[in-house]
């Protein structure tokens, strides 16, 4: 037998077990590597921000030596504190209003067939489909036309409008999943409509209302475009302020604020996760 023949024989012997192994299609070649690469791509920029927030250099992209001086500077920056307070005021207002309006919409529209409430759903869903900048400039035009000054009140109204669909998503989903049994039991026991609403519907919806509110808060506090067009001189929010910083000379202070915001999001997410676990 020549070498090639041996090789061929070995190959034919090999084919069968190799094919058996192949049946485990759950593993495509290179998919594992590609997946880790994608995760790396998603997190590398955030990691860079966190690491470079501890940079003593004046230029954000050039590493000098480890230092916390930009955090100290951030904590002493009055503009940042004002912007942070504005952001929270608007986000809390928008969260409360949008969640209440979302609950009302979910309850009111549940009985209506979709076709019968097209206009309502179009208005609710518009912020999910239409580019934010379009709604932002339209709202700016509206405020100017009726004389609403640029500031926190107008911003809260605009934030409420685009937060409603986000608050509504979990509430509507939950309402669709609810079992009829508790409602029938309540009705059989003589509860009237408003008693059922207060003692059955709303308590059953409460986890969804909380997630809806959380979603609305996250959307509002992170919003840049609407706030950018509607903020007046004294109502700058944190994202608008950070955008201004990025446009001028970028110091690691941007990284420091960003890291603090990442930390804040992390704490909110982990605490909501823990709360959810405990409830179950």
């Amino acid at each position, binding site marked *: 037998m020549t070498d090639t023949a041996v090789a061929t024989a070995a190959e034919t012997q090999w084919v069968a077990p190799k094919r058996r192994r192949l049946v485990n299609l759950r593993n495509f070649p290179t998919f594992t590597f590609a997946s880790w690469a994608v995760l790396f791509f998603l997190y590398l920029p955030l990691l860079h921000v966190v690491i470079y927030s501890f940079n003593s250099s004046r230029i954000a992209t050039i590493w000098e030596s480890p230092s916390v001086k930009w955090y100290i500077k951030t904590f002493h920056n009055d503009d940042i504190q004002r912007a942070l307070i504005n952001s929270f005021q608007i986000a809390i207002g928008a969260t409360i209003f949008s969640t209440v309006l979302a609950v009302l919409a979910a309850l009111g529209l549940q009985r209506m067939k979709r076709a019968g409430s097209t206009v309502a759903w179009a208005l609710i869903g518009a912020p999910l489909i239409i580019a934010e900048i379009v709604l932002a400039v339209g709202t700016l035009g509206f405020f100017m036309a009726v004389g609403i000054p640029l500031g926190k009140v107008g911003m809260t109204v605009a934030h409420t409008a685009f937060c409603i669909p986000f608050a509504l998503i979990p509430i509507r989903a939950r309402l669709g999943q609810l079992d009829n049994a508790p409602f029938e039991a309540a009705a059989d026991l003589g509860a009237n409509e408003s008693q059922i609403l207060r003692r059955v519907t709303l308590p059953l919806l409460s986890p969804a209302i909380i997630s809806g509110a959380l979603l609305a808060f996250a959307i509002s506090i*992170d919003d840049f475009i609407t706030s950018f067009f509607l903020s007046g001189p004294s109502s700058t929010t944190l994202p608008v302020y950070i955008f201004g910083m990025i446009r001028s000379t970028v110091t690691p202070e941007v990284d420091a604020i960003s890291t603090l915001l990442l930390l804040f999001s992390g704490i909110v997410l982990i605490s909501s996760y823990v709360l959810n676990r405990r409830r179950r």
Partner: protein
Amino acid sequence: MTKVHKHEKKKHLEGRPGQTAPALAFPTVLFLFFGIGIPLALTVVYSFLDRAKVGMGVTWTFNPKAYKSLFVIENLDGTTGFDTRYVKVLWNSFVYSGVTTVATVILSIPIAMWIATREENKRNILLAAVTLPFWISILIRTYGLRQIIDDNGPIGWIMHKLGNEGFHIIYTPTATMIGLIYVFLPFMILPIYSSAERFDFRLAEAAYDLGAKRWTVLRRIVLPSIRPGIIAGIALVFIPALGSFLQSDMLGGGKTNMIANVIALNFGQARNWPFGCALAVLLIVLTLIFVKLIQWAGKKTTGEQVSLI
């Protein structure tokens, strides 16, 4: 009674006790009429007006001048010609969003399939890792990416070490597209994952037993099964990418890269509200056309009505 309910649960939802009156939705609809409806209507109205002589705003003389100036330039000597600037902006927006969509599909399929085939514990952690960026400000994510692809950033450093001295990517259209891909990637991974999760791997096994190769299985069995997820992902990536502002502003350098940047410019320094509004109306129309296309494609592949709300 319960039996009837079990059988026709969906239908019977209508008759559930304690169903509240439609009137409850009235405050929300009224609020959104002023918060969304009027601003959108005003955008259309403003697009047919003249710019204010001084400062911001409009003067109330109806004309289609703003739309005309999308394509026609008036030279100083009074002659007119075809204006390619805004056609180019439209073209850019389409190309950038299209490339972003294709790239996110290619990057998402492996990771979505991979996550869907992990054990449950690992799957939940990986899903959380993909979902987490939703909770992080897009501004911060875009800024982080800018630091990465900056000439002085890690990519530039590696390129420099590899001897690629002239490496420069920041403030180019490529940077804009990388930014869009980075920001919208999770929007593609999640819907594809939810399709992949439902995929029955016995089908793939059957295909193997019938002698199909990996690539054939992937193309002929897996891909058609996850198509609804891909279509949903395309809607979630292409539509917002078309109206995106931050990535082209922060990474693309120029101020008039994409539609949203030109809208912003006309509501800022350029102070031409009617023209900004005309572009906004154009963006709305393009969005609606695309929504219809996606719904049509969704209906064709799944036989179901695709709801974007």
